[in-house]
């Protein structure tokens, strides 16, 4: 029997804790429990048997930590342990002569945090899980249970590993803290969005909380989930008693809560830490045979990041369009230079302006689109919690970005051409996503609303053959330039209305196209956005920096009754007005030099603009900015001014430099030279490096920042590919990584062009830095500036 035949139709019961039972059988704290499947086969088999006789339908294998890394030193491989574990469960079922029981191959977290927060690569995680799953599936497991996941990215890696190595059903459950959060910031909504996108077979919660504490989160989850729900709490909250961990919720109380959870609509119940055969017995006795609530498709259109979920219910979603190199020379240059800081700042800027989702496009001739899009997504997700819209016409680029994306993305786009659908839909099916469907096909763009509706229908029908539902399609009615045809905008609006009326499908537009070729484009854009929202627009791709667009958006939301208490409108207005007020009170009797010295960022930018009306850009730099920075730097070195003040001045100077560079136009931004900086391999602490970078940029150096945990080879490559690099800065915080600093320097000396190396970091001393081959020990941020100036003879 396949578990999918009964899943959702009757309540199924998992077993209880394995660890707790092993403990009762004498396993010591710190001893590896997974190897007991090999070394203590009878014990493990007996535990399974006890759960079977208690009424469990699904046995969970003793493989929670079954990875080669965790088994290091035990003498066994993950493969061996997984096979033995499945075998023990099989034996138990045979010995108990059960026929309708299932074996769930248990997959727990790797115990490592994924990049960029930790040092485990995504593909490395997939490979780790794959090894265990492959062995367990081959040994005869009936399903894969991915559980106790506290990081959505690791969860995704495990689900992909399961999907790629076997055809077994996949159940996935996560662990929440008492506030309903995953360790890395997700919640039930973001978890449901991602897991449903990945097309698992059941999803839910386990561990950490007792049934009482889990109940409210289970309710929330059931409310939004369109799949069968699994709930396996601990036997209460863990409590220490002597050297033991004990759980207070006994079988009877546990059952009472589980009954409530079943009535709320859960479909699979079981126990995690602290639960015993007695808990399972009490629960199955009371609840076996009751009919669960049916699994209902909630028909929600949602996208998510690792922590945030954006729903296309109720209000028009704003998608920031700025991270697209088309027509943006600075972004083009940044992508060519692999300057992802620029991309991240662009993203942060749009988020601050109120974007709900960010479009990310790397379509630029001459660069590796796949790698660039992947890096942009990775970097953006390290600082921004908004869902992203992955935007590419290249299937390969889309796949790589979708695979590594942490959450359920928007995908831009598919169209009515068969080739496009055949490329994009398999990706959406595998990785999940809300896909933008352009209403064009082999024949081009239909000139009528009915023609576009026809293509939309075709796309939705085709999606369904791939198992993709209408709720995961958002149709682009296509904005055509109104100056090229008077009827163009009207046709688009009519298409929106038809799409809503005939198909009840989600709709989206790239709004700004409408005004191409006209002066004061924002006026037209704002008017068009309002009218499109009236016609039923669900997603608007716009520039969030355009205030008139944001005004039009928030106003339309109010007028259409989509902004309760007009709260968003009011907050929007406050956001705009507040900085203006701050600006107004600036600047009286303050010079640019003083503003920079005092670290007044906003004022410095404004005063730079004022000075630029009277002086040439270079004069502003020479007469105000450089003296201010020098004064502050000297005071820092004398110890009369401290790091935060130095950095506030740096920020103020940066704001002023930005204005000066704008005024200089093409010739702006001449640097003294290029410095490569990196936090060495193995080290994840990079604040010191970031401070040095900010100051170097302030002093007009171009900085190539390789980030943290950087392999020696990457430093070498950066130095080789940029022939104007004369200086490399390396940082390391911990004693365990200083030897990697030495390795990096040795490699540079051996294989690189002649460069100077400065080294800094908390554990370094001058003596040590020089002993590992550095040319200069940077005792603090200013010391690195002075050295850079001397190397480049500034």
């Amino acid at each position, binding site marked *: 029997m396949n578990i999918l035949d009964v899943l959702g139709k009757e309540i199924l019961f998992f077993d209880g804790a394995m660890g707790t039972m092993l403990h009762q059988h004498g396993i010591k*704290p710190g001893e590896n429990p997974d190897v007991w499947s090999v070394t203590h086969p009878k014990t493990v088999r007996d535990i399974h048997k006890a759960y079977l006789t208690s009424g469990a339908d699904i046995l969970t294998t003793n493989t929670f930590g079954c990875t080669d890394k965790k088994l290091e030193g035990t003498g066994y491989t993950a493969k061996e342990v997984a096979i033995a574990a499945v075998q023990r469960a099989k034996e138990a079922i045979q010995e108990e002569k059960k026929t309708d029981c299932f074996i769930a191959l248990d997959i*727990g*977290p790797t115990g490592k*945090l994924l990049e960029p927060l930790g*040092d485990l690569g995504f593909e490395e995680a997939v490979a780790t899980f794959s090894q265990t799953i492959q062995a367990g599936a081959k040994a005869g497991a009936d399903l894969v249970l991915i559980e106790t996941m506290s990081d959505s990215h690791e969860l995704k890696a495990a689900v992909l590993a399961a999907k790629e190595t076997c055809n077994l059903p996949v159940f996935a459950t996560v662990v929440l803290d008492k506030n309903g959060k995953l360790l890395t*910031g997700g919640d039930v909504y973001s978890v449901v969005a991602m897991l449903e996108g990945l097309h698992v077979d059941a999803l839910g919660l386990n561990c950490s909380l007792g049934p009482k504490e889990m109940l409210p989160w289970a309710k929330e989850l059931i409310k939004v989930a369109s799949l069968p729900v699994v709930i396996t709490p601990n036997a209460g909250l863990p409590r220490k008693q002597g*050297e033991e961990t004990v759980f207070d919720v006994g079988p009877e109380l546990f059952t009472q809560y589980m009954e409530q959870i079943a009535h709320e609509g859960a479909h699979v119940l079981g126990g995690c830490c602290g639960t015993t055969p007695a808990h399972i017995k009490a629960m199955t006795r009371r609840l076996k045979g009751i009919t669960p609530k049916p699994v209902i498709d909630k028909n929600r259109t949602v996208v998510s990041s690792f922590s945030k979920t954006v729903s296309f219910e109720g209000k028009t979603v704003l998608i920031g369009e700025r991270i697209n190199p088309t027509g943006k020379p600075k972004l083009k240059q940044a992508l060519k230079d692999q300057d992802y800081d620029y991309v991240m*700042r662009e993203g942060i800027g749009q988020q601050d302006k109120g974007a709900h989702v960010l479009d990310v496009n790397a379509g630029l001739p001459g660069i590796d689109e796949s790698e660039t899009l992947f890096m942009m997504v990775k970097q953006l997700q390290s600082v921004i919690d908004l869902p992203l819209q992955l935007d590419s016409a290249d299937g390969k680029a889309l796949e790589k970005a979708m695979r590594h994306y942490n959450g359920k993305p928007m995908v831009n786009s598919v169209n009515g051409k068969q080739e496009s659908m055949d490329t994009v839909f398999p990706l959406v099916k595998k990785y999940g996503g809300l896909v933008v469907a352009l209403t064009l096909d082999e024949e081009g763009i239909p000139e009528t609303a009915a023609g576009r509706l026809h293509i939309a229908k075709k796309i939705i029908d085709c999606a369904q053959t791939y198992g993709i539902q209408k709720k995961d399609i958002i149709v682009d009615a296509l904005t055509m330039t109104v100056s090229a045809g008077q009827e163009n905008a009207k046709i688009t609006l009519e298409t929106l209305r038809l799409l809503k009326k005939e198909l009840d499908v989600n709709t989206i537009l790239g709004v700004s196209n409408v005004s191409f070729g006209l002066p004061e484009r924002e006026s037209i854009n704002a008017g068009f956005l309002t009218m499109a929202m009236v016609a039923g627009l669900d997603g608007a791709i716009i520039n969030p920096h355009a205030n008139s667009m944001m005004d039009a958006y928030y106003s339309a939301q109010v007028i259409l009754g989509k902004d309760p208490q007009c709260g968003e409108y009011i907050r929007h207005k406050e956001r705009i007005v507040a900085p203006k007020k701050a600006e107004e009170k600036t600047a009286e009797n303050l010079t640019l030099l003083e503003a920079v010295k*005092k670290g007044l960022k906003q004022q410095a930018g404004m005063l730079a603009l004022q000075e630029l009306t009277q002086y040439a850009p270079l004069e502003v730099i020479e007469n105000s900015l450089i003296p201010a920075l020098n004064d502050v730097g000297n005071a820092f070195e004398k110890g009369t001014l401290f790091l935060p003040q130095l950095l506030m001045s740096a*920020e103020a100077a940066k704001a002023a430099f930005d204005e000066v560079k704008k005024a200089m136009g093409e010739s702006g931004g001449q640097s003294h030279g290029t410095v490569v900086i990196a936090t060495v391999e193995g080290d994840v602490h990079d604040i010191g490096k970031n401070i040095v970078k900010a100051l170097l940029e302030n002093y007009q150096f171009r900085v190539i920042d390789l980030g943290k945990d950087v392999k020696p080879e990457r430093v070498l490559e950066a130095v080789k590919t940029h022939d104007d690099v004369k200086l490399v800065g390396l940082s390391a915080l911990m004693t365990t990584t200083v030897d990697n600093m030495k390795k990096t320097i040795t490699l540079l000396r051996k294989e690189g062009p002649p460069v100077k190396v400065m080294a800094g970091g908390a554990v370094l001393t001058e003596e040590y830095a020089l002993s590992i081959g550095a040319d200069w020990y940077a005792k603090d941020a200013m010391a690195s500036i002075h050295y850079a100036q001397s190397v480049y003879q500034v």
Partner: protein
Amino acid sequence: MTYDRYGEALRLLGYRGRPGDEKTLQLIKEIFDELDRTGSPVYTAAFYGLQLCHSGEVLFSNGWTVYSNALYEHLKTCEKGVVFAATLGADIDRQLKRLSLTDIAMAAVLQACAAVYLEEFCDRVQAALHEEYPLEMSGYFMTDRFSPGYGDFTLSHQKMLLEAAAACKQIGLTCTERYMLTPTKSITAVIGLSKTNICRQANSCEHCNSKTCCYRRETE
């Protein structure tokens, strides 16, 4: 000496006992307010029996042995130990990176404030251990927290302490291949439990040998 969180933050920012300037103090206040409002530090603790038979050898009741003179000295006379782990979570790391891009001054101040906030949390948790674990703690005095990286108690012990406290499963705390805790704003430590009142603070700033360290706590 009364505790002063602002003073601690300033110390970590390199003020060496000098008073903070108005703007920095304002920034520190804003960040502490935000941490107090939104911070969600978590911890886990596990109790082990200890045997200190040979000099430099600490035997835990689960069979693990740590070879460290510094830890041995710290735990001398202790019969039991608490393996302790705490973290501020992953979001602080993201915030630090974000601020490094948008406001480096604020990033530096958050870095310092988060460290102070984490220490405060650990102090509170430690002070409440007697209340939380009356059975295990009754009749015992505590040493200060002693963390890997101090003396010859090398960072490589992070892995063992994380396992001993089941920190990955309990609070999601892990370490990298080079034994750095991730999320980064985290602590692991051993607290010794002794029947005799010992005042052992080897882990503290004043007892450190780096006399010229720029972060050194200035004492009267």
